[in-house]
């Protein structure tokens, strides 16, 4: 806590941003994102299958080349997916873009 924090405390004006529990919560959140990266193969497999099913509704993808992984970043964890697209399905055309005559 800096001087201003000490003063704020002294004058009973402890703001939310200076409260140590806010720091505790944020540190916990980060630490748990990392801890929870240790998720099972089974969970990753079902995530992969669900991804294939959802994306498959919009485009044809190369299921065998699909890669999904969790990687560490500075400020947490990212889910990175590399999904080769083989073919795009024709989308139903949005009526509002058809010019009226």
């Amino acid at each position: 806590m800096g001087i201003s924090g000490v003063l704020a405390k002294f004058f009973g004006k402890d703001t939310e941003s200076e409260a140590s529990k806010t720091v505790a919560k944020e540190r916990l959140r980060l630490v748990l994102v990392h801890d929870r990266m240790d998720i099972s193969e089974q969970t990753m497999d079902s995530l992969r299958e669900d991804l294939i099913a959802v994306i498959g509704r919009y485009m044809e993808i190369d299921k065998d080349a699909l890669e999904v992984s969790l990687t560490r970043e500075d400020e947490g964890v990212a889910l990175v997916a590399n999904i080769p697209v083989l073919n795009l399905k024709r989308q139903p055309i949005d009526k509002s873009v058809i010019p009226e005559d």
Partner: protein
Amino acid sequence: MGKVIVVTSGKGGVGKTTTTANIGTALAMMGQKVVMVDTDIGLRNLDVVLGLENRIVYDIVDAVRGNCRLKQALIKDKRLENMFLLPAAQTKDKTAVTSDQMVELCDKLKDEFDFVIIDCPAGIEHGFKNAIAGAEEAIVVTTPEVSAVRDADRIIGLLEAAEIRAPKLIINRIRVNMVKTGDMMSVEDILDILAVELLGIVPDDDAIVISTNRGEPTVLDSNSRPGEAFRNIARRICGEAVPLMSLDEKRGFFGKIKSLFAGD
């Protein structure tokens, strides 16, 4: 057929043994037939918290190895006739009991008792695996600290992997004044992070230290605040809907004087 409930935490010293002793005693006060099992082999503790240390003849290792009959190893409480303790062994060999033996032991005990409450050692090693081996339900104890909550999260994951679903949380050692000034995580903060069902909250209170000194679980004292908290928890375990107790201290005249001197 009784219920087997393990009390666990991951991090050491957050109050597993205190919780086991008080919930066990409170359930027995409600007329349930209770046995508490100390699985902290080499670091026997539950016996002293319950004030039964002078009565031990046999222990859990004797019981599973057949050095005595199971009944002989069960210590009957001196206050409540339907409450028993199966003490841990003070052997150096922490692996003296196997998981299979624990499962068998729990099966036998739940035939005889309404509640089998298992006090788990700290950590996630052999002792933890043993303690949860025969359990159907789990209580996870934490305190409002980063390290304790982190370990609780890990333990919840391990319990789920062991197919002990939906563990319930007890938040111990809450200091209401610190929560108010924003210097301690609140109950909501912790539930937000762990996303489990709350079984109860227990204030940080000198009564725990005093009752542990005497070997008299604090639930036996009808004026004790943490005692009330643990009695509420026991009622919830039996299916009663008991609201969370307010943590605001009831301050009488002496409480006010004391707080003047304590400067809070």
